């Protein structure tokens, strides 16, 4: 009998594992100067995002048929370093894939992410805050996205949304950006050693977790527009 295909196995894992995410919360339009702003909290990890745009762009940076998206990540202490630059690239590529940049050619969109407190799952918190801020600014998007972090610990268990302590003890750490229409992986950022089977399991678990996050986005937007102005 042939061994079960990896995909069906990961779906079994999905059905069995209870995807546990830490408690999350968000707030939109909390800053008065930017065109859109949001803060996202996952457990103790907290990030604030601000969006400016579509605004004027320097001629050296303008693109003739698309908007120029710039992402700036500010750490809690100190100046941005190489680690922040690589995380900026991950966030920027995800946002460029989901925004309709061709509707605002020769303009600039600036996304600033400030880390308020880091207790693990930093990159996925950046992604979630970025998505809420882009929605708040009213920028046209063709899908929503969310970030989910998975850690594989020494016992080969998959932990979703790990804390900083769990991340330190893990042998592999993966962050995926998942889109809202077909739950596909838009961006992945992995460190550590893991097998192909474990990667597929983590992707399946992240896709399941993303459903909770998208439902949360919908509920917070609904609450925001529920006030009858």
């Amino acid at each position, binding site marked *: 009998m042939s061994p079960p295909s990896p995909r069906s196995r990961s779906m079994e894992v999905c059905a069995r594992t209870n995807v546990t995410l830490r408690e999350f919360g968000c707030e939109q339009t909390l800053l008065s100067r930017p065109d859109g702003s949001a803060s996202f909290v996952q457990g103790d990890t907290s990030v604030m995002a601000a969006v400016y745009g579509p605004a004027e762009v320097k001629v050296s940076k303008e693109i003739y048929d698309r908007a120029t998206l710039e992402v700036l990540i500010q750490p809690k202490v100190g100046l941005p370093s190489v680690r922040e630059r690589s995380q900026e690239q991950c966030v920027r590529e995800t946002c460029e894939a989901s925004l309709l940049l061709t509707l605002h050619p020769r303009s600039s969109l600036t996304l600033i992410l400030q880390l308020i407190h880091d207790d693990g799952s930093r990159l996925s918190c950046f992604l979630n805050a970025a998505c809420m801020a882009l929605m708040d600014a009213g920028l046209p998007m*063709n*899908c929503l996205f969310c970030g989910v972090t998975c850690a594989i610990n020494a016992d080969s268990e998959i932990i979703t949304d790990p804390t900083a302590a769990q991340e330190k003890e893990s042998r592999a750490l993966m962050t995926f950006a998942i889109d809202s229409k077909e739950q596909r992986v838009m961006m992945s950022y992995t460190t550590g050693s893991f097998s192909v089977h474990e990667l597929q399991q983590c992707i399946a678990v992240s896709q399941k977790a993303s459903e909770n996050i998208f439902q949360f986005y919908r509920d917070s937007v609904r609450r925001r527009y529920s006030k009858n102005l």
Partner: protein
Amino acid sequence: MFSGLREKVGQVLVPGDEFCLEIPETLSLSEPMKPEKVLLGPGLKRKGDRKLLVVKSGVLRHKQPHVFWVENQQRRYVPARGETVIGIITVKSGDVFKVDVGGSEQASLSYLAFEGATKRNRPNVQVGDLVFAQFSVANQHMEPELVCVDSAGRANGMGVFGAGGLLFSVSLGLIRRLLRPRSDVLSDLQKLLPCELVVGMNGRLWARASSVQQTLVVSNLLQSCDTMSPPQRQQLFRRAAQGAL
């Protein structure tokens, strides 16, 4: 046609929601097919042949007979043709003024686009003046262009203005509420203080009342009632009327 669309009117939608064209199961050969039209406003885009995509988060609204749009609360203005805005003249170069309207590019305003302007009779416009104008060209591919005359050549309220008043910014949602046919915000304000108000659809408001203090009261009231519900706003206006503010 888009039956799902009519059911969702009044509900909150997020980017990524899709609506599919429903094709009737049986086509009648004897009766003529009535073509059904749907007009898409901001926040809705056509995707391919048969799908509608929601691109902004907000409440789905409907106006008879077939107009749909997503109403959201955003602060950034994107120029659209036909909208009247308040601009600030920044550059006067040759035959063209450059006007800051709060968008991603400055708009251009020709000196001939004023009522009664000819090559000999130039309008009296200086850098820093406020101008109330309408977009004649505004799309993503071209530089936006403003005019201060309507299609018949009359000013119709547009042109340079601004002596003695105060210019301030509010969100686009409040502007739309002020410009509604029977706006409660406007009627509450009129009962409170007589003032002159110019509403620019780019989020800018200009107000002038009989004294500087009253002008400041009007601007503070409008900026703070942006996110208030009607009862809260009426309470605020009542407190202002009693002189508590």
